[in-house]
């Protein structure tokens, strides 16, 4: 039985985390601090899918580091350079076609193909240089949304509280009247409204009559605290 469960888990595209780990993080364990701490961030060298990485490496390695010819100047406008590359790629392809038509076996052909691949690498590199900027901008948008949600929530709760207070205040007035004038049956109805809760009061009008005085004074006192 246990074997079958683990087998079906092993074939899942997204298997659950190992249960021996996540079961340690119960509410009590987290509260008392006995749950294991997250592993510290890796410093220095590590491997991911067999490829070596270094945490000190630049986010995007420069073209020179990757032994690729750089086709744009040191100071550049990314958009302008990207457009230039886009056109250069097309021209290079047309030239390659010309070579193929006129003289397919010439060594120029291989040079052209090499040029084309350098152009493509340069273009991808420029696009990738946008990535860190994009990551920070995404984070900014997420934070802004989070803040807006919180502010909206505050407004909603405040509004609900104000509404509840006005209801309680009107109840205060009508309850004062009730003590002196109204019969018990209506009294019950009023109090149900006051309570604001969904539970239904199960008192009956006959007994209510007997303690309406002392209890309602409590209610009025309580409602007064909200003013």
């Amino acid at each position, binding site marked *: 039985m246990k074997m079958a469960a683990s087998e079906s888990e092993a074939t899942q595209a997204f298997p659950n985390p190992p249960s021996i780990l996540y079961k340690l993080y119960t509410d009590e364990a987290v509260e008392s601090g006995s749950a294991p701490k997250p592993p510290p961030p890796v410093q220095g060298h590590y491997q991911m899918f067999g490829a070596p990485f270094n945490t000190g490496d630049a986010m995007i390695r420069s073209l020179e580091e990757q032994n690729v010819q750089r086709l744009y100047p040191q100071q550049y406008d990314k958009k302008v350079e990207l457009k230039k590359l*886009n056109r250069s790629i097309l021209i290079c*392809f047309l030239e390659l076609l010309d070579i193929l038509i006129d003289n397919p076996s010439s060594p120029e052909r291989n040079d052209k193909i090499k040029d*084309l691949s350098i152009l*493509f690498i340069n273009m991808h590199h420029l696009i990738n240089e946008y990535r860190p900027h994009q990551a*920070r901008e995404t984070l900014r948008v997420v*934070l802004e949304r989070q803040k807006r949600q919180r502010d909206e929530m505050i407004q909603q*709760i405040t509004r609900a509280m104000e509404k509840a207070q006005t209801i*309680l205040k009107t109840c205060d007035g009508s309850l004062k009247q009730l003590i002196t004038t109204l019969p018990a049956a209506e009294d019950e109805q009023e109090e149900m409204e006051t309570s604001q809760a969904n539970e239904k009061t199960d008192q009956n009008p006959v007994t209510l009559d007997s303690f309406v005085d002392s209890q309602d004074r409590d209610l009025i006192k309580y409602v007064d605290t*909200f003013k």
Partner: protein
Amino acid sequence: MADRLTQLQDAVTQMSDYFCNSIGILQQNQTTETKEGGGESSTNNATLFASLISQTATDIETLIESLPDQEYTPEKQEETLKNLVAENQVSGEKLRQVINEAESMLKQVRLYHKTI
């Protein structure tokens, strides 16, 4: 829909695919055409790839155009993020206060409801 950068990267990759495939098809047809003296299908293929490649080039151009003009420096972005985190914390604190207030109010109302 992926983000613009990924779209742009995909378009560039697609461009290289088209280059590769178009030449591949030229080569494939080359032997048969010399025998049969050219065919309608190769003209069709040429038109097809020409339009695909020019379309992709236009797409790439449009996507590049949509990228932000002036990039903020990482320092400036970091500053904005720090401010946002601080503002977020203030909002969070305020939210916690409001919730506590609302909870205590609800508790009082419930308490009274019980005593009736």
